[in-house]
């Protein structure tokens, strides 16, 4: 089947989801009110709280949530065939991610734009706050570990991508300095940055940098391990710099790359009319992970991702101009992420291989599929770029640089966030030396995921990647579960319809717990002394979440109904004046 037909079909369903289901959610479930005075107006300080045009805010929101995760997960999940992968992406985006992203944004806006962790403490109970911190700790640890492995594998497989990525760092610093000192617009410098990056992609393809000899000299078991160590050393330093020095200017360049990559995929499949060569449902080898429950934790970002609730309630809610804008910003954010996941599935099923036999070799078993997923995406995008006249080798370096840039930015942000989480957990545990020392906290934030990423595994690509990715998926889904539980309790208190929230909540928790139990048994059987306890801890957190959510929902049903406006008398006067 031509990829463009599938793409149009999926985007059509997304459109219907936004047109009808998000309207139902906005009006009947969340009760969005155009007269509600949002925190951006209530606390307008010109810094954190700023009323922002909804299209601009969508741009902020989408570029914050989009990264490498909606590429990697779907690229692995194509193992079960493009049918199940796309079905989960479509159903997840329309009925789970939209509900989750919009819900976490609305509940935050109705609580002075507080973040989901703080809301968990208030709406559910104090223990839920500790639960949130622990889930986020494991989520960030696994995020940083899997993306270090992704980048390491890509550098080894595409040594041409090393030079452009390295050159991007000093160039981004120079751009940051220029914009910061001159206060000029970022458009021309960031376009120049993109141009230099693409020039370096061409140079990099001519001058590949392979560190295998150095890794051998230093006694590393494989070159990827050396890359992992170098990457964490880099993130330790980068996370101590002010954001405007490196993270911000690199993000200007990466945001352009996001739209360029999406454009290449759309134009490539439109011009080339590539056909999907993968089967709709793949006949997977015996002993492989089953669709239920593993598909639903393999594709987290792209179908539903708890990380979005952190962005929705962390920054987006502080900038929402009108309550009713939440529908567009929140729901469309999940649709944007779903579209990226759609692009990833098409790249690995229509671009990465020319025939079904070739494709079946790439996805021969789960270990091969998970280890080679990112490489398959890179080759798929290269094939789409080739339809536009870009040589295949150059296209592969371009796609590798895109994925590495996204993953590196995620790692930068992840380590920054993790050190705060480490400090807060240390504060709660009364361990003052760690709570007060940023360097020590940064060290913990770097060393723990690095140890995970360096875990020895079998297979050329390192089977730990597939395993780590699944563990990352479970923690991401648990974060989404916690956010959905907060939304469900809040809606129950207001006697609003809760079914649209409870169905994805129960589904997610069931799939996550099921996957954790199956994985735990296999880890114990394989004698995995690190992964088995880690899986066990995450399972305990999942069960804790189930109990807290159930108790809070039962308690909320017994309480008298409350207004969900959450505004004081003064605020209501301001609302009337504004209306």
């Amino acid at each position, binding site marked *: 089947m031509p990829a463009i037909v599938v793409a149009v079909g999926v985007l059509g369903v997304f459109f219907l989801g936004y047109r009808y289901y998000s309207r139902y959610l906005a009006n009947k479930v969340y009760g969005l009110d155009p007269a509600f005075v949002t925190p951006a107006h209530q606390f307008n300080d010109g810094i954190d709280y700023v009323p922002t045009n909804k299209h601009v805010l969508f741009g*902020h929101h989408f570029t914050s949530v989009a990264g490498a995760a909606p590429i990697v997960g779907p690229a692995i999940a194509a193992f079960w065939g493009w049918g199940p992968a796309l079905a989960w992406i479509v159903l997840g985006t329309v009925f789970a991610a939209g509900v989750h992203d919009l819900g976490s944004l609305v509940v935050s806006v109705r609580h002075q734009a507080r973040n989901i962790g703080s809301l968990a403490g208030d709406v559910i109970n104090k223990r839920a706050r500790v639960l949130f911190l622990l889930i986020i700790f494991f989520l960030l640890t696994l995020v940083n570990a899997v993306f270090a492995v992704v980048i390491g594998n890509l550098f080894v497989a595409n040594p041409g991508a090393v030079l452009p990525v390295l050159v991007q760092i000093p160039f981004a610093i120079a751009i940051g300095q220029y914009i910061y000192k001159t206060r000029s617009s970022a*458009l021309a410098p*960031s376009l120049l940055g993109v141009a230099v990056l693409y020039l370096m992609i061409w140079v990099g393809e001519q001058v590949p940098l392979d560190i295998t000899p150095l890794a051998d000299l230093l006694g590393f078991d494989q070159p990827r391990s050396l890359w992992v160590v170098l990457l964490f050393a880099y993130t330790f330093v980068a996370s101590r710099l*002010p*954001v405007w020095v490196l993270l*911000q200017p690199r993000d200007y360049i990466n945001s352009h790359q996001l739209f360029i990559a999406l454009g290449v995929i759309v134009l490539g499949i439109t011009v080339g009319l590539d056909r999907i060569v993968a089967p709709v449902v793949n006949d997977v080898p015996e002993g492989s992970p089953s669709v239920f429950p593993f598909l639903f934790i393999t594709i987290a970002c792209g179908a539903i991702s708890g990380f979005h609730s952190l962005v929705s309630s962390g920054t987006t809610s502080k900038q929402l101009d009108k309550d009713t804008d939440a529908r567009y910003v929140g729901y469309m954010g999940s649709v944007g992420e779903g579209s990226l996941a759609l692009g990833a599935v098409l790249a690995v099923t229509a671009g990465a291989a020319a025939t079904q036999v070739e494709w079946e070799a790439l996805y021969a078993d789960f270990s091969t599929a998970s280890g080679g997923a990112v490489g398959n995406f890179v080759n798929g995008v290269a094939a789409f770029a080739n339809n536009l006249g870009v040589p295949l080798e150059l296209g592969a370096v371009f796609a590798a640089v895109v994925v590495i840039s996204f993953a590196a930015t995620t790692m930068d942000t992840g380590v920054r966030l993790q050190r705060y989480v480490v400090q807060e957990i240390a504060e709660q545990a009364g361990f003052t030396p760690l709570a007060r020392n940023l360097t020590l906290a940064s060290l913990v934030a770097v060393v723990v995921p690095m140890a995970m990423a360096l875990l020895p595994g079998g297979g050329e690509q390192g089977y730990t990647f597939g395993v780590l990715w699944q563990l990352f998926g479970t923690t991401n889904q648990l974060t989404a579960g916690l956010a959905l539980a907060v939304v469900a309790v809040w809606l129950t208190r207001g006697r609003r319809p809760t079914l649209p929230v409870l169905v994805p909540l129960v589904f997610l928790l069931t799939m996550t717990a099921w996957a954790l139990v199956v994985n735990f048994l296999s880890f114990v059987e394989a004698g995995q002394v690190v992964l088995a306890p880690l899986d066990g801890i995450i399972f305990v957190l999942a069960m804790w979440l189930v109990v807290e959510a159930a108790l809070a929902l039962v308690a909320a049903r017994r309480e008298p109904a409350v207004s969900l406006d959450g505004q004081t008398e003064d605020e209501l006067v301001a609302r009337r004046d504004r209306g």
Partner: protein
Amino acid sequence: MTVFARLRRGWRSLEAAHDAVLLGRWRRDLLRTARRQEEELVSLLLLEALGAQSPVSYYALEVYPWLATRTHELHRARGIDRLDSGACC
């Protein structure tokens, strides 16, 4: 309006839209950084005003011309033409 002027205006609009989307995400970090730097400067000046020895007096010398300019702007804005404090004018 000339073609060049139209192009220039179009480019400026594009810059504004681009910065609104891309810079906005980071604006609060920039403003926080600026606010923290200003607060540090004010704290140091307060220390000196209270008679405490500022640990960075020597390094703060370069901001005195800026302070004199700001003081000058401040008293002019308040309707005072000259300020006989020796700081400016």
